[in-house]
């Protein structure tokens, strides 16, 4: 089975939307998801009834299933996807929606990641995240995802000689990008010294290695190129897209992800290589995970990401490799499942010339990768796509 499978010809990804993030909200997840719909409808110049497909990812919609939203919003879609895939959900929602449009099962699919955040909701989510977590992770210090990613980060540092300064460079560059992005919750400049002197959270992780949980939504529409053109919408085409779950099952520690398995086919289907990518949006729940993606997606060799970030400007206008150009989750915040949509929404804005913050000069192609769902000691889902400005 070819990882990149058949082409996505004829499909347009369009109308990137963000419902501004808030640290905490008394509102429910359905509010953020519904407001994303409400904002996309006039932006696309369509009616609510024109949306006949709905792909939603949310942790805090519970106890409601995604189908409940059709009643909340008085919609009758013919196609519905619930994507409990966390940080991989945005790329995968786009991929599934594109196939539905190609097959004729839906004409316009709204893809939305949205969550609310209340003071104790994060603890409740973590404590009950999975069976394996409940039995074999949470009782050991109850550190939440910080524990798991601290262990991965420590092993990565031991194995490849990466230092805290290397992770800091990535975080500082993203903060520079975030300063331009109006929806980022953290826009105050961050110096490398401030990064290094931050309080420890789960060693070797310190404060600025960890995302801030918050509320918000990110979304986009998938439709045919013909429809996007008739509506006069700027859009991106999907050159290739891959997803793989639980790759490298025998690795004792997650120092690589499914991207490494699928990389060659991802680029081959797109007809370009890493040097043909104008901006990269990786899933940055922790900086080490962005480093794994930079390596596994071929921007540098395995274990060489530390050297790469020492030598390569990562800001949107630095002339190197523009990376997480809205500031990423590390600066914008992690609005639950919306964190899995942040990268694809930003990549879509970049290649369609609609950046809300720093616009990468002449951006025509973006590589967006996703990573999601730690059930025990590693993230299971990996996804990646290469999108290009529609002609």
């Amino acid at each position, binding site marked *: 089975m070819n990882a990149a499978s058949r082409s996505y010809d004829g499909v347009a990804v369009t109308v990137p939307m963000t419902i501004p993030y808030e640290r905490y909200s008394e509102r429910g997840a359905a509010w953020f998801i519904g407001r994303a719909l409400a904002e996309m409808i006039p932006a696309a110049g369509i009616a609510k009834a024109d949306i006949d497909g709905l792909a939603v990812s949310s942790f805090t919609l519970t106890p409601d299933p995604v189908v409940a939203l059709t009643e909340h919003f008085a919609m009758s879609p013919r196609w519905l996807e619930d994507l409990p895939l966390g940080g991989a959900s945005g790329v995968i929602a786009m991929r599934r929606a594109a196939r539905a449009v190609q097959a004729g099962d839906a004409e316009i699919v709204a893809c939305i990641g949205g969550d609310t955040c209340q003071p104790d909701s*994060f*603890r409740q989510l*973590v*404590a009950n995240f999975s*069976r*394996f977590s*409940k*039995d*074999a*992770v*949470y*009782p*050991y*210090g*109850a*550190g*939440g995802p*910080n*524990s798991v990613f*601290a*262990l*991965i980060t*420590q*092993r990565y540092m*031991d194995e490849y000689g990466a230092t805290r300064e290397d992770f800091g460079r990535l975080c500082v560059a993203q903060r520079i990008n975030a300063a331009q992005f109006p929806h980022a919750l953290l826009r105050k400049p961050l110096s490398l010294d401030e990064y290094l002197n931050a*309080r*420890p*959270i*789960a*060693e*070797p*992780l310190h404060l600025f290695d960890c995302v801030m949980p918050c509320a918000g939504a990110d979304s986009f529409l998938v439709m045919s190129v013909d429809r996007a053109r008739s509506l006069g919408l700027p859009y991106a085409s999907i050159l290739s897209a891959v997803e793989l779950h639980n790759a490298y099952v025998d690795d*004792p*520690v997650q120092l690589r992800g499914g991207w490494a398995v699928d990389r060659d086919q991802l680029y081959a289907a797109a007809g370009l290589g890493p040097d043909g990518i104008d901006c990269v949006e990786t899933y940055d729940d922790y900086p080490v995970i962005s480093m794994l993606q930079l390596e596994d997606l071929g921007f540098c060799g395995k274990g060489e990401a530390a050297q790469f970030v020492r030598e390569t400007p990562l800001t949107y206008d630095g002339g190197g490799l523009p990376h997480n150009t809205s500031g990423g989750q590390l600066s914008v915040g992690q609005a639950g499942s919306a964190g899995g949509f942040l990268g694809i929404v930003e990549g879509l804005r970049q290649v369609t010339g609609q950046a809300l913050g720093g616009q990468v000069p002449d951006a025509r192609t973006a590589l967006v990768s996703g990573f999601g769902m730690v059930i*025990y*000691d590693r993230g299971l889902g990996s996804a990646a796509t290469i999108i290009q400005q529609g002609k």
Partner: protein
Amino acid sequence: MSDSAPPPQERTSVGKQMSQLDPADGLKLQVCQDCDTVQYPPRELCKQCLGAGLVWTEIDPGGTVLAHTTLHTSLEPYFSERLPWTVGTVKLDCGPVVMTHIAASCHGRDARVRVMPARDDGGTAVLVAVPESAADGVGEGKTVAELLALE
């Protein structure tokens, strides 16, 4: 130090089975009766052959530390009151990777350890990594605190 809140006691039905064992019997994990695969975390079917015959069986507790982390924050009051608290991952010689509480004397990468069961302050079984060279600690049903102090 407050003793008001115990550490997290919630477990799944299969996870609770570990607390029904006697820690003094040493480390027992689920072993598949069909293909001998040792399982962790606890589950209902063998991860390899999907067989239903998993039996809690005494296994070799030896392993190697993969990584450790010292926590300075926790979502649970029990640990918040006892910070910093260190946990780690251990690759057991018999296969699985386990997350464990870990004695200060074996925090180093690739340290050789034995993984022992013990009852936490709420009476639920947890795993603790102790130095392989520790003279005692096996088969005595020590508390978590006693195991963490082993050198």
